[in-house]
């Protein structure tokens, strides 16, 4: 398995999330599906650059920038899930979203990442876990923080 597999996984997640937000267009900002499609195209460009500069980039570097892209994709999914639950107050929809998209995406990613870095896992498990958590948390908070905080304080209920 090449490190670019994580970028490919990220592209798939962005595409699935884009279609989901299009189906639930009343619950998400209008431009969200297009933003996610653009992010998926970004992932494709990512893989393309890796291919063109294969001899230049070391495995270590390729792994980290592909892993970062996957983390951003997962961060988006988690953030959208939190947005549904905390801002829109649509608990049932949020539960369905997490069960159908968020948790499978995180589970699949965790499986492939642990398979890839298996030999190194014992050495760096704490650092990887902390970094992964920090990225997901930071993305969730930065994308939706004002509405999230408002929602957590018991703001306007839409449902």
């Amino acid at each position: 398995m090449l490190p670019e597999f994580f970028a490919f996984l990220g592209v798939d997640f962005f595409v699935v999330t884009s279609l989901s937000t299009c189906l639930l267009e009343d619950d998400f900002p209008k431009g969200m599906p297009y933003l996610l499609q653009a992010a998926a195209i970004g992932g494709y460009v990512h893989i393309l650059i890796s291919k063109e500069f294969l001899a230049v980039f070391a495995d270590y570097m390729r792994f980290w920038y592909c892993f970062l892209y996957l983390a951003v994709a997962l961060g988006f999914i988690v953030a959208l899930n939190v947005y549904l639950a905390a801002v829109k107050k649509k608990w049932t929809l949020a539960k369905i979203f997490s069960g159908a998209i968020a948790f499978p995406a995180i589970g699949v990613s965790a499986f492939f990442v642990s398979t890839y870095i298996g030999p190194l896992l014992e050495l760096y498990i704490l650092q990887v876990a902390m970094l992964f958590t920090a990225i997901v948390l930071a993305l969730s908070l930065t994308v939706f923080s004002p509405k999230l905080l408002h929602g957590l304080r018991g703001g306007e209920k839409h449902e």
Partner: protein
Amino acid sequence: MNRMFNRSTKMFILTLLSVAIVSVSALTYFSLEMQSVVSVTGAAVEFSQGDDWDGAWTLGTNNTWCDIAPSAYPNATLTYDEPVNLTNSGAAVQIRLRTISITPASGQPQVSNFTFINFVLHDETGAIQGSLNFTTTGDTWSTPSMSFQTMDASDEWYISIQTKAAAGATGSTSVNIKIAVDVQE
């Protein structure tokens, strides 16, 4: 109705776009997987000058081949005990000596001046691991080959050379032999 149509159209366009993005990404990924990278690195197994090295001989680029012009005495065997060494600075590998060229080439009348030129490869204990024995039949060289031998990591082997010229060989005749080392991981 119009809103429903809009949503369907949007969904259809996004689905098409999604299929296209995933397809080209998958194609690029698999082409990447099939692409092999060959990077040039310094050779781990290389020739080096031994105690009996002659200043007129040359070691090739990256020390992966050498150009040797040994002397030969008429009707007497001349031995170079340790003209060339072979060192392995990497992991254990399979190696063999290979002939690149020999001058004068077969067909030249000068060839008949030589009886044999034998390159013998010894390991660090002195045991023979293989040889390249050039013999002549008239003005034709019999070009030898060698099978692969395992060379352990950090080993230093040496090559000895034995030469013999024909009884009536002319004194001004010389031979140049280029040999290389092939490595199998």
